[in-house]
């Protein structure tokens, strides 16, 4: 009996073997991911049909039939519409985008002063890129330059009125310049303000807590359009006569406060996800409240809610278009404004302009999204407790 049993005992450990062929290679991938079962196969085929139906016409419109050059609407209109294209032609009018590109970027910012905007843009990129790449050293100095020095320099350059720079009033600003300024200020203000509001809402001090709750719930309970409208139309009514401040500044404050309320709730979600043990661990070492928050709780909480934070950023970036309500023109506003230009009005102009605006918005939003995913992976230390 016992002798028979011995046959089942290994005399040496088994070595790992390579996976069978059907589990490796591109064919295995296709079978696993596209045709794993009948339902998957049907979905795959339907998906491919949809792609085949949509992509070629879109490609033809955007590239093959598109009008790339031209000086006025005749290049983008058919003969029947008073243009040079054959009847039945349908293609993007990139000539329109090309001709109006300056306006799309700068709005009505005076042409001879646009170098100032370009200079600010160059500084922005030159400071932002090293800040985003973890390997580049001197993050502290870089952040100081980006968050403190750069806004002051950019503000002076853009507004002018000093150092012999002509004054450019904000109603002349427009296009991508307005979109990016609003978003930059919104992001830079809303994150710290949101963190403070979130901490306030979780504070044990009743007054601090109540103020935070009132602020957050009031702002969140009101549409952004209302906030902007109030800031632009109602606020001057309450200010004493003679006191007024810039409309663009009011929009900036409106957007920033609005985003902060949302940010506060996102951050609060993160704070609540941090186990009590982390607070207690920090307490037991004698760390004070602010040290505990800054060194232990917030780094973990913010990492957890990166998707939510970026979601708010992206939402705010796109919401900036709403400033048209107070007759400021961001990128989308300027594009739409130009539809009514008689020199370019044609059936293809609106779609081309909108596709261009969409592409620009998408580039920025996609960039933010990808970067946040990269950061999430980088900060993951693989331990959830």
């Amino acid at each position, binding site marked *: 009996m016992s002798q028979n049993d011995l046959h089942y005992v290994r005399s040496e450990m088994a070595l790992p073997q390579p996976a069978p062929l059907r589990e490796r290679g591109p064919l295995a991938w296709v079978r696993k991911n596209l045709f794993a079962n009948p339902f998957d196969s049907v979905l795959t085929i339907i998906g491919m049909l949809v792609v085949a139906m949509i992509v070629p016409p879109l490609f033809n419109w955007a590239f093959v039939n598109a009008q790339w050059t031209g000086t006025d609407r005749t290049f983008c209109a058919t003969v029947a519409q008073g243009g040079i294209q054959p009847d039945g032609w349908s293609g993007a009018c990139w000539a329109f985008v090309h001709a109006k590109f300056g306006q799309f970027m700068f709005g009505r910012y005076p042409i001879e002063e646009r170098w100032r905007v370009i200079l600010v843009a160059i500084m922005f990129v030159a400071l932002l890129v090293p800040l985003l790449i973890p390997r580049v050293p001197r993050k502290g100095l870089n952040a100081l330059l980006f968050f403190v020095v750069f806004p002051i320099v950019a503000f002076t350059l853009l507004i002018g009125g000093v150092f012999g720079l002509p004054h450019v009033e904000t109603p002349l600003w427009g296009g991508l310049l307005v979109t990016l300024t609003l978003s930059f200020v919104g992001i830079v203000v809303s994150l710290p303000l949101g963190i403070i509001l979130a901490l306030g809402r979780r504070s044990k001090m009743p007054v601090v807590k109540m103020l935070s709750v009132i602020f957050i719930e009031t702002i969140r309970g009101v549409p952004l359009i209302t906030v902007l409208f109030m800031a632009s139309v109602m606020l001057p009514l309450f200010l004493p006569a003679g006191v007024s401040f810039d409309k663009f500044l009011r929009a900036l404050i409106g957007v920033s406060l609005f985003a902060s309320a949302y940010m506060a709730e996102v951050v609060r979600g993160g704070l609540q996800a941090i186990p009590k*043990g982390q607070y207690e661990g*920090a*307490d037991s070492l004698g*760390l004070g409240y602010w040290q505990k928050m800054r*060194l232990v709780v917030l780094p973990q909480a913010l990492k957890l809610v990166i998707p939510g934070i970026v979601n708010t950023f992206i939402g705010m970036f796109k919401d900036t278009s709403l400033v048209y309500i107070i007759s400021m023109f961001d990128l989308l506003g300027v594009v739409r404004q130009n539809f009514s230009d008689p020199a370019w009005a044609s059936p293809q102009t609106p779609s081309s302009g909108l596709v261009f605006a969409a592409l620009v918005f998408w580039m920025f939003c996609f960039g933010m999204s990808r970067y946040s995913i990269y950061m999430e992976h980088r*900060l993951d230390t*693989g*331990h959830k*407790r």
Partner: protein
Amino acid sequence: MAIENAVSADEIKVDRAKMHISDTDVAIDIVGMHKWYGEFNVLKDINLRVMRGERIVICGPSGSGKSTMIRCINRLEEHQKGKIIVDGKELTNDLKKIDEVRREVGMVFQHFNLFPHLTILENCTLAPIWVRKTPKKQAEEQAMHFLRRVKIPEQANKYPGQLSGGQQQRVAIARSLCMNPRIMLFDEPTSALDPEMIKEVLETMVGLAEEGMTMLCVTHEMGFARKVANRVIFMDQGQIVEENTPSEFFDHPRHERTKLFLSQILH
């Protein structure tokens, strides 16, 4: 290291013998302390005096208030009545006093509570740098010294998530030691560990005891209690029911509840 241990182990024997006469320095004094969770009286009239260098093991059934009691000692829990004096400082609502006490009292938790976003070394240097204002380099040297003592210096640059439970708990002990505490509290330090890892943590704690650290341990490791404790305290329903030397406690328990408890856990 081994020689050091041997010497201190000898000292311990002498120390124990003359404990009751020479060492009258009080580390913790709890007088008539009560605590309520809402309406529920979790701790009732706790009186406990711990001398410097004493090692006390606290045991009892779950829900008996033993964790709550030692958490009151560094004010992770607030007591509502009575007095707790730690190292000569009474715990009140004075936040400054609380931070002072916490600096001198190290605590080790059941679930380690290491900071997962920091490396082992950063975990150990965080409080010395920010609370004690120790220069970074010195704090790191000190951290390495304690990491060597808990026998995991080679893990210094890893993250807590990459370590086993036993290793994490030893890091947690080292992290507390980096603040040079005069008192160490252990709240069920081995309860969340796999059986194979309990020993390495207990050995670290025995080493600490041999060096004369004042220790309060909530634990069910009776072998540990017999080996290092001066006194064993048994709690039930929020009260200290029995208090005795380990040998008396285990061999001649007086209280009925204690006898029942011991019969349940010692098979």
